[in-house]
Each structure stands twice: as C-alpha cells, then as structure tokens.
C-alpha cells in the first residue's frame, strides 16, 4: 500500500474531464438542481455531472442515503435522477441534450400527475 496517510489531493480546476489528447465537439448547457452547467454532446448525464465533482445523484426513499454511479452500464439503477420532470431515469444511460433539466432525486421523486 502506498503511504496510508496520503490525503486526497484537491483538483484545482473544477473539472474532472481529461483534457489531454481529446477533443469533445459541441458544448451545450444543462440545468442541474437549478444551476446551469457545461456539457458536451455525446456525454451521459452522469458524465457531465461527475465532471463537476458532484457524485451523489439521488437519495434513497427508505433511509435517505446518498447514491451515485455504481455499475455505469445501466443494470443497477442506483444513478437514477429526475430528468425533464420524470423520476427514475438512469443518468449513466441517458445522454445530455441542450437545456435538459436534471434534479437530484429525493426518494421516489416528484411526478407531475395532473392531466
């Protein structure tokens, strides 16, 4: 094991995107919990959000625990968020669209039920 007292380095730029050797194409904007953030076409919602350093994507309905990206291949359903007013959408399997509205989901989330 490397030195066990090693503290976690802070990343100075607020962006976890790898910069070296990659060009990303079209930049767009998405709204996460009311705040506008940068995203690139082709990114998953999870990728755009993790790129800001935010990793808790929802809280569970029974014990209100935070959850984030776990399997990243769409089978665990832990990364679900409320996207464009629809709860329980997997952030790792959903791709960003300009203007997409995303909310950290609390429990079962809120549905717009009225016709």
């Amino acid at each position, binding site marked *: *094991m*490397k030195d*066990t*007292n*090693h*503290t*976690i*380095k*802070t*990343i100075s730029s607020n962006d*976890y*995107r*790898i910069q*070296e*050797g*990659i*060009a*990303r*194409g*079209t930049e767009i904007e998405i709204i996460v919990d009311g705040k506008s953030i940068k995203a*690139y*076409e*082709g*990114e*998953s919602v*999870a*990728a755009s959000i*993790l*790129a800001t350093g935010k*990793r*808790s*994507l929802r809280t*569970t*309905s*029974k*014990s209100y*625990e*935070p*959850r*984030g*990206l*776990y*399997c*990243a*291949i*769409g*089978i*665990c*359903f*832990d990364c679900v968020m409320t996207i464009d007013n629809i709860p*329980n959408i*997997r952030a*790792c*399997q959903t*791709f960003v669209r300009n203007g997409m509205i995303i909310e950290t989901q609390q429990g079962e989330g809120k549905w717009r039920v009225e016709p």
Partner: protein
Amino acid sequence: MKKIKPVVVIGAGPAGMGAAIELVKADVPCMMIDEAPRPGGQVYRQPPTKFQTQEKYKLNSEQKRGKDLYTQWLEVKDKVNLLSSTSVVGIWNEKEVIYSSEGISGIIEAEQIIIATGAYERPVPFPGWTLPGVMTVGGVKSFIKTMFVKPGKQAVIAGTGPLLISTANRLHEIGVNVMAILEAGNPPWTSGAFSKEWQEVDFAQDIANDLEELKGNNIPLLFNHTIFEAHGKSEVTSVTYGEVDAKDWKPLNDTKRTINADLVALGFGFVSNTELSMLAGCRHDFHPGIGWYIVRNEMMETTVPGIFSVGDGALIGGAIIAEQEGRIAGIKAAQNAGAITAGDAEKYFEKHLSRLHSFKSFRISINEATAMRKGLLYLPKVETLVCRCEEVVFSDVNTAIKEGAGDLQSVKLLTRLGMGPCQGRNCASSMGMYLCETLKKTPEQIGRINSRPPVKPVTLGALAKMINAEEELSNPFDAITAGGRI
C-alpha cells in the same frame, strides 16, 4: 426459394459482432439490437462519435486485439440492420422479441435468436458499498474509456482477477492516484510464470504486460487482501481493508487498516446476463465451479431450438472466446436457415471450434480463480444493505431465515429482496450463496430469483404503442428514430 427471416442478434459486443459477421457472409438477413448508442460491447466500447481521441487511448492491448474484429465488422455493417440505443425488454412465447427505444416499442416474431448480452460484475456486499464513489471496475473502465471523465482522484481497487490490474493502469494513465490493488486471491497469473494452457492464450501476454506496467506505475498489488468497509457521509472518503484467509477469503479482522480514498473500484468476477434466456424458457443448470449456466450444445444452441446463447452472457470467458462463440452460432443459424449446406458449415466451424477448444482449460481456470469464496460473506454487518434497490439489510434476511424461509423466492416474499428495478442482479448471487451456506442446501434447492419481463426499463406509453415490426411497416427499421445507426 423461401424468404429467410432475419436472425435476431441481441447484443453488439464481440459475441454479437462475431455472429453478425458470419450471418452476413452467408447472406442471411440479420437484425441486431443493442442498448448502447454504438456497437462494441463492454470491452470495445467506444467514445461518442463527436469525440476525437488520440491514438494512445486506442492502443491498449484489448483495443488492438479488437481491431481485426472491428475491421471485419466495418465490411459487413451496412448489411446488418442495427437498432442501436434500443433495449430488448423481453422474449415472450419463446421467440417473440420485444424491444423498446425512446417512447415506442415493437415486436419481432423471430425464428432464430442469438442472445449475446454479456455480463455484469458480481456484487459483494460490505458496509459502505452503496456510497457514491464506490463503483465496479468494469464500470470505471467503461466510464473512462467512453466519457473521458475521472470518477475520482484517489482510488483503491478491490476484488479478484486480471481486470483489476488493467483498471489500475488506466486510472493511473488519466491521473488518478491508485493507492493499491487489493487482490483477494493469489491467482496463477500473478506469479509471472504461466502454465502451458495459459501461454496458448493471447490473454496471458496481455496480463504479463499489464503487470509490467503496474510495476512501472508503482502501484502496490496486495494478495489475499480485500476491502472491509467504505466510510463517508455523502460519498466515500476512506476505506478500511485488511488480509483475508487464503483458503476461503474470510476477513482477518485484526489486520484492519484505514486509508483515504474517494474512489473504490470493485471487481469480484462476472455474472452472466441470463434474464432473456430464462424468459425464453432455456434450461439453466448449476455447476459447482462456475455457478448457474445455460445448457448449450457445441453449436451454442440452447435447449430451445433456434435460440443460441453466446459470449459472456452464456459463460464467462472474455472477448476472444465471446467472438468465437458468436461466429459458431452465426454459422449454425445460417445452416438452420438453409443458407449454407451442412458440409460448408462444417468447414467454417472447424477453425473456431478448435480455437475454442484450446481455450477450454484456460476458461476453467479463470472461472475457478475468480469464483466467489464464501469467506467474503463475513463482510456485511447486520445493518449492511444486501439489496441496494429495496434497501433490505442483512439482518432482514436472517430474520426471514428464522421465520422459515428456505429459498431465495421466500426470502424475496418476506423481505422484498430482489423486487426492485435491478431484478435481483445485485443481490441474488451473494444472498443465494449465503442461503446455501446457512441452510446447508444446494443452489438448486435455494433457487434463483425468476426474471420477469421487462428486463430493461420501458414505459407504459411505449408498450401501449407497440408495433409489429413486420406487419405494420414495410421497413421495420424506420420505426426506430432514436440513436444513429452506425
């Protein structure tokens, strides 16, 4: 001549691609469905089309090996009807394939189906495994190789198997500080000296290279160690780890130590995605060495004639084996459809069958080496979640056992374990093993959590708008609006 119905290939990983290539070669129409936006499967997963990446990201050993397959794929892909960003949600009445994409769904009445749906990581519950920042190694790898985003800054990797090593190197490459790999076993590849059967597989060379690289990267590889607990409030901030008993990997609690980390990558081997073959009514048996598996003949055909199962979705073996199996199934399906003669098929098979044969002992040893050991069942505490979806804790399962639950199905009814959206993928294998150990029963007696359609999310709206791909549209593929065809 009778019009040949398209063979439906589910999954566009190496197994599915291998099948599609052989089908196209034999002039058999092929319809391929994958939920990802681009083909490649888990191992050859690619970044979004808009991303341009430097060669260095493409040149790792796996990608290099995939190159041949990919070149052949490019030659045939225009003849394959690929529905990407489309999930198969169920196979009903044996051969009715139901798929869904962006708000609509459709049904294909298939004659032959090749299921190539791959695998997912075997879940091992321990305290804190649900915290944000705790991920699977496959997930980490796939995430960085497609999205080029760092999932954390300082990582601990735990589990067993060669994927841990390549994951450590990939994380290092992108600037994540990898503190250590905690390898629960002491598997054969780590000695550096590979047995004969291992040397025959290109894979052994990859592992040797990865180990070299690991040394260069200065990442410690600790054998017979594993993670005991992940700590943190809103996400993981530190990890407790320690040694495990060499025989059954029981944690040795007096060796506990704690270390800072904001990323934990877990890889305790893989479990095949067998939901679709279960729904289709294919027989599955239990084997003590490899767990539940789909019964198939040498030509990859399951007990339901016309349904094939190939690749990691059938039996874990990795990308090269997956591709060979896919090809064999493709050839056999072409023969079944009357597009090639038995004699020709025989000829085509030979190469792939003998290749597969040479992998046989390798495959057994990799399955044995990475098989889950029962000592890991000592990791969860009473309040540890064992079912992530329904938030069932370990003591709930024990209470159910006390109340007389004698199999997974009755534990499910009493606790809601496995009733959530992941359909038991993240609890059935660990709790199944736990029940076997506690109740001293066989896996057959403990049973499995039945898979129920839909195996992938689909909205009521999509099902209400179900179309019959053949009947209602002259070209069924027009129906799919989502996801570019590549």
